[in-house]
């Protein structure tokens, strides 16, 4: 995986998330404060600013720069967690593996661990952690099955989508939504939907070449 290849993936993910801002606000509004789309658009903008000036950075440096920029520009719950994920992924890839799928696994494992530590939510609490956990599992499976990048991302995107859908029936136990658990019922967790949207864009990018 090259830094410029990574930048391409990040860029399509950022665009997709920004393009879904209204939908993310709406989902966050059921039991939260309806600003996830706003926050994630700020994160996406910050990320794209970093990409624009990323020449010469290594994969690890690029991820860390994205994390730092997001932490500064989008410091709400999801922004801080996403920033944490990028920072941890950057550290995990300081020494970059040649194999892209292996890189993905290391990055997501590190991000998941960092986000769990910072947010103190566990799998099953109906948060971003549920989506990330599913994606990480799927990536690990692809690695052990020796799949290529495109198939790996395709499967990861599908797990992210399934994980997001599954949250609709879960009771929120962390974050704002935990203050009004009944109102969350029947609607998927906004953070997980955001992850699924980003993963789908990334998979489509891999598909298209």
């Amino acid at each position, binding site marked *: 995986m090259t830094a410029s290849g990574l930048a391409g993936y990040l860029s399509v993910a950022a665009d997709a998330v920004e393009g879904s801002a209204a939908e993310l606000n709406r989902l966050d509004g059921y039991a939260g404060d309806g*600003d996830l789309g*706003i926050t994630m658009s700020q994160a996406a903008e910050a990320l794209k600013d970093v990409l624009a000036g990323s020449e010469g950075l290594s994969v690890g440096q690029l991820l860390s720069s994205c994390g730092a920029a997001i932490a500064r520009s989008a*410091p709400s719950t999801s922004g*801080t967690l996403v920033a944490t994920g990028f920072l941890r992924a950057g550290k995990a890839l300081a020494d970059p593996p040649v194999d892209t799928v292996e890189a993905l696994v290391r990055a997501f494992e590190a991000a998941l661990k960092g986000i769990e530590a*910072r947010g103190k939510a566990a799998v099953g609490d109906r948060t971003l952690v549920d989506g990330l956990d599913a994606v990480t599992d799927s990536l690990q499976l692809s690695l052990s099955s020796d799949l290529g990048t495109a198939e790996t991302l395709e499967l990861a995107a599908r797990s992210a989508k399934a994980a997001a859908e599954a949250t609709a029936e879960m009771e929120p136990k962390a974050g*704002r939504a935990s203050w009004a658990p009944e109102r969350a019922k029947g609607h998927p967790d906004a953070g997980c939907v955001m992850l699924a949207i980003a993963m789908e864009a990334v998979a489509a990018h891999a598909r298209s070449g």
Partner: protein
Amino acid sequence: MPMQKIINEPKAFVDEMLEGILLAHPESLRSPARRVLVRAGAPSEGKVGIVTGGGSGHLPLFLGYVGYGLADGVAVGDVFASPSSEQILEATRAVDGGTGVLYLYGNYGGDVMNFDLAAELASEEGIETSTVLGTDDVASAPAGPESRRRGVAGIALLYKVAGARAEEGASLEDVVAVVERAASGLRSMGVALSPCVVPAAGEPTFSLAAGEMEIGMGIHGEPGVGRGSLEPASEIAGQLVGRIVADLPFRSGDEAAVLVNGLGATPREELYVLFRSVHAALASSGVTVRWTWVGEYATSLEMAGASVSVLRLDDEILRLLDAPCESPFVVRR
């Protein structure tokens, strides 16, 4: 739909507000970094520093409590959004007088993560910090030891207590002790009568029909415990005080400080009508009101509605509430 707001570019809202505040109050406040404000004279050598922070749109929260006998520094977030750990760290550095810094803010995910991160960074720089969270909103979650409850207007009373104790020269440990005692005896609950519009969003945070009210709504429009038809002030007071008293619980003979807080658009006249009924409802539970604030202490832009906070008093807490304080927004002699 155009917003009925006196603003320029929605994106410039927070920074232009801060410019206005610094122009209006240069003797009181200075800005050591972007979206960070501290007392003009900070740091106070030897005094415990108090740093707070949170989203904009709640004036006088949070920055309005930076002043004598209150907090020392604040990290200012976007409207209804957390400040970054970087801002919090800047505030921490600017107010550290060598005897440690108290982080005192409301229990919201983004804020907690960013203050925790700042605390780690500060500790690497040799600045000791302790954290006390405002978790006063009884409507947000069941009571519990590791509280998940959000912090609302009651934090104004915690600033008053913490700031006065720090001004007395108490150690960080002693300041934390009394603020934790105050926080554990503090309960709030509110009612919303209209939504507000976040400038960058341009749309109401929720919808509420005329003649409806939402009991227990949070200060960002987070859903409350129930929606119903708008009741008379005495009924509203009865419901809010009833839940607050039962929750702690307050007992007959207790003495209390009361804060009746307006959310933004509710006239001060109505807050006093509400206070009158709150006073009566507490009296009928045997709770005596010894100290009072009625006004706008924690708002949600132009939301209509009010909250009631009740703080159980002991001699030390009452002494600290009675001490003078002075910021550009809150003065008590």
